[in-house]
C-alpha cells in the first residue's frame, strides 16, 4: 500500500513562516504555558510582535551577522529570541547543564558575541571558572531593561511587525543561521552550522509525514534541535497551539492541564510515564480492572470499535493520541503497551547534523521496530559497511571552523551518520552504531573516550573503560572499570572520581566503578575490546 506524503503550506525561511502565520493565524493562540498555577495564552500576533521588537532592537543596536548565544532554561522568550535572531544573525543555543568551564569553551570556540542568560543561568557566567572573552557582552533576559525591549506594550503592533518584516524580507535562506552544539557522530564537541532552509524544510518534512492536531506539547530542552525543531517550530509552521512545560518536574501536571494531542519525547520519559501509570494502578488495587479493560478494548477493536479513550483517557490525558520517540531507541514493548491504552508511539530518527529529523514513523504506516518513514526529499542509502548515509536539504552546511571534521563525515555528497542499518527505500531500520558513543535513555550522547581519558589521567590508573550498566529494567548508569598501576592508592579512587564528576554535566557523571585486577581485554592491535564490556549488566 502506498502512503503519499501529506500536503503542507510551503515556507522556505522564517520570514515567510512568520508572515504567513501573521496573515492567517493572528488571533490563534500560539503559545500556552503555566507558571505558578497561572495559565498564559499568547496569540500569534502577540508572539510575532515580541519577535519583531527583539529583532528591531538588534537592528537599532547595529547587531547584524553576530553570533548570539542563548543560555537559558525552557521559556517562552527562548522562542521569540530564536526567531528574531535567526534571519539576520546566528543563534547559538547552548545547553544550560554544561559547567562554567565548558560554557567558556563554547563561547570562545563558537565566537559568541552576545550571550543571553537568565536569572537562573547567570550564576555560571559569574563563577570564577567562567573565563569571559573581552569582546563578549552578556545580557540577562530577566533584567528590567531587557524586558522593556520585548514587552513594550506601548509599541504599535501592526507598525512594528511591518517594520520588522520590511527589515528581514531579504533574508538569505541559505546563509549560516543556527550554530547547534553536538557531541557528533564521534563524540567530540562540535558546532553544527545550519541554514534557515535546513531547519524549515526539515520541520516541513515532519508535517508531511503526520498530521499534528491541536494542541501540541513541548518539554524537551530547547537547545536541542530535536526539542526545538520538530516539536516547537513544527507547531508554529503548522499555525496551531504549542503548550510549553517550563519545568520538567511539572511534566505530568502540565500534560493533564493542557490535554495535548501530541508531544515529542525520549525513551526515559515514555517508559517512566508508563511505569508511573502502572504503579498508580497497582497502588489503587485496580490491576485486575486495568487488565480486563485492555482485553475488552482488544476484543472490540477487532470489530472497528475503539473504546480505549473511554477506558484509559484519564490515565494521562484524554486527547493524547501521538507521541514521537527520538534521541535514542525505545524498547518496542512500550509501543505495544501504549497502544493498548490508546496512545500511538512513533519512532523518529535523526541527528543534529540533519536538522535533525531523517525519518519519522507515520500513523497510517507505523512499522514497529523501524526508525520511521524517510521524509520527503531525503535520500538515504546504505554504504557497503552498512553505515546509513543521508543527502537532502536537511544536511548541515558543515561543522563550524572544522573543515577536517566536515570532510570526514561527508562521503560523495552524503552525510555519514555513524549508524548502521538498512532500508527498504521508504522505512529505515537502525541496528547499531559504528562508533563507541553511549546513548542514554534521555537521548544524551556520552563519548566514553572522554571520560576514560579523564580517569586515565589519575596518576595511579593504568587503564579504564566506561560503559553503560543496567541497574534495572529501564535504568542505566555510567560505570567505569578501572585497572590500577598501584593498588595501594585504591582508597583515593572514590574521591578522584568525584573530582572528575565535578566538572561534568550531571548526565555525564560516572555513578559507580569497580577496580579490576586483570588487564582489560584487547585485540591484536592492543585496543580494548569494548564489546566484552558493553552494556554491562548486574
Amino acid at each position, binding site marked *: 500500500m502506498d502512503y503519499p506524503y501529506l500536503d503542507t503550506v510551503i515556507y522556505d525561511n522564517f520570514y515567510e513562516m512568520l508572515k504567513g502565520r501573521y496573515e492567517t493565524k493572528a488571533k490563534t493562540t500560539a503559545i500556552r504555558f503555566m507558571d505558578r498555577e497561572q495559565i498564559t495564552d499568547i496569540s500569534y500576533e502577540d508572539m510575532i510582535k515580541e519577535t519583531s521588537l527583539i529583532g528591531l532592537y538588534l537592528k537599532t543596536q547595529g547587531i547584524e551577522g553576530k553570533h548570539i548565544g542563548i543560555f537559558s*532554561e525552557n521559556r517562552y522568550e527562548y522562542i521569540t529570541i530564536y526567531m528574531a535572531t535567526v534571519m539576520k544573525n546566528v543563534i547559538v543555543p547552548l545547553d544550560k547543564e554544561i559547567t562554567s568551564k565548558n560554557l567558556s569553551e563554547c563561547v570562545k570556540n563558537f565566537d559568541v558575541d552576545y550571550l543571553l542568560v537568565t536569572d537562573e543561568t547567570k550564576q555560571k557566567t559569574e563563577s570564577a571558572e567562567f573565563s569571559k572573552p573581552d569582546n563578549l557582552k552578556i545580557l540577562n533576559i530577566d533584567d528590567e531593561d531587557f524586558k522593556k525591549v520585548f514587552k513594550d506594550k506601548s509599541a504599535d503592533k501592526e507598525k512594528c511587525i511591518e517594520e520588522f518584516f520590511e527589515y528581514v524580507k531579504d533574508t538569505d535562506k541559505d546563509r549560516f543561521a543556527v550554530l547547534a552544539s553536538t557531541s557528533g557522530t564521534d563524540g567530540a564537541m562540535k558546532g553544527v552550522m545550519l541554514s534557515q532552509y535546513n531547519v524549515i524544510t526539515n520541520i516541513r518534512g515532519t508535517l508531511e509525514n503526520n498530521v499534528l492536531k491541536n494542541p501540541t506539547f513541548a518539554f524537551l530542552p530547547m537547545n536541542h534541535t530535536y526539542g526545538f525543531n520538530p516539536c516547537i517550530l513544527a507547531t508554529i509552521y503548522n499555525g496551531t497551539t504549542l503548550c510549553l512545560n517550563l519545568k520538567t518536574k511539572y511534566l505530568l501536571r502540565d500534560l493533564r492541564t493542557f490535554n495535548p494531542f501530541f508531544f515529542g519525547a525520549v525513551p*526515559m520519559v515514555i517508559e*517512566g510515564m508508563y511505569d508511573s501509570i502502572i504503579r498508580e494502578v497497582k497502588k489503587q488495587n485496580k490491576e485486575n480492572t486495568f487488565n480486563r479493560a485492555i482485553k475488552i478494548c482488544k476484543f472490540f477493536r477487532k470489530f472497528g470499535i475503539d473504546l480505549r479513550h473511554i477506558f484509559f483517557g484519564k490515565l494521562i490525558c484524554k486527547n493524547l493520541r501521538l507521541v514521537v520517540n527520538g534521541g535514542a531507541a525505545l524498547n518496542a514493548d512500550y509501543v505495544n503497551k501504549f497502544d493498548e491504552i490508546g496512545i500511538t508511539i512513533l519512532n523518529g530518527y535523526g541527528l543534529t547534523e540533519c536538522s535533525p529529523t531523517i525519518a519519522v514513523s507515520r500513523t497510517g504506516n507505523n512499522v514497529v521496530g523501524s526508525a520511521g518513514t524517510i521524509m520527503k526529499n531525503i535520500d538515504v542509502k546504505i554504504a557497503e559497511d552498512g553505515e546509513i548515509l543521508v543527502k537532502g536539504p536537511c544536511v548541515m552546511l558543515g561543522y563550524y571552523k572544522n573543515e577536517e571534521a566536515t570532510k570526514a563525515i561527508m562521503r560523495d555528497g552524503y552525510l555519514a551518520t555513524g549508524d548502521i542499518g538498512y532500508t527498504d527505500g521508504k522505512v529505515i531500520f537502525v541496528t547499531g552504531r559504528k562508533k563507541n558513543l553511549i546513548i542514554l535513555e534521555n537521548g544524551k550522547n556520552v563519548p566514553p573516550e572522554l571520560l576514560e581519558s579523564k580517569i586515565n589521567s589519575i596518576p595511579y590508573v593504568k587503564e579504564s573503560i566506561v560503559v553503560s550498566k543496567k541497574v534495572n529494567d529501564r*535504568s542505566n548508569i555510567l560505570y567505569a572499570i578501572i585497572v590500577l598501576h598501584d593498588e595501594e592508592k585504591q582508597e583515593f579512587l572514590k574521591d578522584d572520581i568525584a573530582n572528575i564528576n565535578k566538572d561534568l554535566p550531571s548526565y555525564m557523571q560516572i555513578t559507580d566503578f569497580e577496580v579490576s585486577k586483570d588487564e582489560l581485554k584487547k585485540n591484536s592491535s592492543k585496543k580494548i575490546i569494548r564489546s566484552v564490556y558493553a552494556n554491562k549488566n548486574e
Partner: protein
Amino acid sequence: MYEKIVEILKDKYGIENVTPESNFKKDLGLNSFDLMELAFVAEEILGVEMKEDAYRKAETIKDICDYLETLGARNEN
C-alpha cells in the same frame, strides 16, 4: 525530613530498606524521570519549591534531605 522522603519512596515506588546513604541511581534504581516525579511529590507534601539543578545533583537520600532543609521545608508530621 528523612522519614518523609522514606515514606514517599515507599508509597510511590514501593522502595523499602533504605539508608541516608542510599544512592538514587545505583542502589534504588531510580532514573532522572523518577527523580523528577519525586521532586514534584516532595514539593507538594513539604510545601517548598526545589531548583531543578539542585535536585538533579542530589545523589543520595541524605543529599536531598540536606537540600530540603536549606529550603526550610515543613518537617511536621
